[in-house]
């Protein structure tokens, strides 16, 4: 065969080699996916051993246990309050990557409120039910168990809003308050209330509330995270990730098991939050927030407060979080690199955990 004839043959061979490599890589990804999907992993519950110390409706109050399976009695108590529209275990995600576990290991008696999954009748739950009811009874239970009149509270996202309202109504029971990615300025663009606002939705009905389906709650979060709201985008992202090591993929799976496992939301709570604290009303910033019949006086929040925002937070924009300085002037404001979830459970999360432990520890020295 002459040179001119050999050249196209070599081109064809190179193409076949490239195709073979492509086929091999695709197959290896599918094999890795199979391995991940068939390996039992940690998902759905907290990583740290715990015991239920209080139950009410769907709520379970968990007390974290030490390595020997015993409560950390005698240690300063801290209550974690997650958002009731998502699962609690983001705060206790994986062994070695657990915010609540880290705080417990640092010498605190840690409690986590698991609000559970609302049923149809829970669509009537409002702010008063959560703040005056569930959160208050969690605090009272912790106080009864520990004999401490004041406890530390760490509120995350909407759980931070509940914690702030509670602290304003019952300031004497809170030693120190940590607000994580808790938006207080409803007029700052971005975040969940603005998604509803921009879409021209009338909002949920307070009088005839529905149980907002999990898929709908999830769609709001997806609208705030460009790329995640299309199946093609998600599949493409997962396909790229399948080059990662199986250990890394198992971590991704645990995180996905939180991100994608949203819970239905009580429509009355959402309607109330939107009408009282959302765009326009902006009740927290304007000093007009109420819980049930009670006016919320934020000047009562005199305990030390740490507010943490995340630079790349699309769910609670940092400007709306940092605005707490104008309603709680003594609050310490910290802005950390990362997103809404990353700062509590991502690779950079230990920066937040460390600062939180320092802050809660300073509380003990004040005492």
């Amino acid at each position, binding site marked *: 065969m002459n040179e001119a004839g050999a050249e196209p043959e070599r081109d064809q061979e190179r193409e076949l080699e490239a195709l073979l490599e492509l086929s091999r890589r695709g197959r290896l990804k599918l094999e890795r996916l199979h391995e991940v999907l068939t390996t039992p992993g940690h998902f759905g519950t907290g990583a740290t051993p715990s015991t239920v110390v209080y139950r009410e409706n769907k709520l379970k109050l968990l007390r974290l246990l030490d390595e020997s399976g015993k409560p950390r009695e005698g240690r300063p108590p801290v209550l974690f309050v997650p958002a009731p529209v998502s699962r609690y275990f983001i705060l206790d995600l994986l062994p070695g990557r657990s915010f609540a576990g880290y705080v417990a290991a640092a010498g605190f008696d840690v409690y986590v409120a698991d609000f559970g999954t609302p049923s149809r009748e829970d669509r009537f739950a409002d702010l008063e039910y959560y703040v005056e009811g569930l959160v208050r009874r969690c605090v*009272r239970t912790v106080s009864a168990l520990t004999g401490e009149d004041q406890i530390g509270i760490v509120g995350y996202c909407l759980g931070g809003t509940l914690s702030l309202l509670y602290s304003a109504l019952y300031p004497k029971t809170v030693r120190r308050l940590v607000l994580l990615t808790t938006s207080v300025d409803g007029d700052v663009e971005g975040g969940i209330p603005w998604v509803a606002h921009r879409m021209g939705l009338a909002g949920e009905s307070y009088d005839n509330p529905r149980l907002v389906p999990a898929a709908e709650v999830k769609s709001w979060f997806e609208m705030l995270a460009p790329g995640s709201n299309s199946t093609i985008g998600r599949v493409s992202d997962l396909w790229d990730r399948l080059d990662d090591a199986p250990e890394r993929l198992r971590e991704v799976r645990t995180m996905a098991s939180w991100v994608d*496992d949203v819970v239905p939301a009580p429509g009355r709570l959402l309607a109330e939050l939107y009408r009282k604290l959302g765009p326009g009303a902006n009740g927290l910033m304007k000093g007009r927030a109420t819980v049930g019949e009670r006016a919320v006086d934020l000047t009562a929040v005199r305990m030390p407060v740490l507010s943490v925002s995340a630079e790349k937070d699309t769910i609670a924009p940092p400007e709306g979080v940092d605005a707490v300085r104008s309603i709680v002037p003594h609050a310490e404001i910290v802005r950390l690199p990362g997103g809404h979830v990353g700062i509590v459970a991502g690779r950079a999360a230990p920066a937040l955990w460390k600062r939180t432990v320092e802050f809660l520890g300073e509380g003990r020295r004040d005492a």
Partner: protein
Amino acid sequence: MAEDKTHPDAPLIERWLAEQQQWQKTFLTYMDSMVKNEDFLVHLGNAMRGSLLAGKPYPTQPPPAASAPETPADDKLDQVLFALRKLEGQVEDLRLTLDELKADRKRAPRKAQPPKPKEPQ
């Protein structure tokens, strides 16, 4: 994970044949898991939606029948159920208050006993 045992210097045709066999093995592994492991189908379905969510199906909008308006009786029943939930909370509040009172009583220093009245002589 299946290993590709073909020598990298083997002729291209042989490597293609080996690759085809590996694909068959991979396919059979998936089929095997689908038959033996019920959860696998759920997890695979989630993966096909781009999610590694484990333990339950990826959330989707409920079918129209599921979101059909309830009857007034259903609605009233839900209101009653939720009112009971609130009552349950109020009972817990009472219990906690009683516990607090008991704890306060234990903590409070015992008041000095009043002197016994003198017996009439």
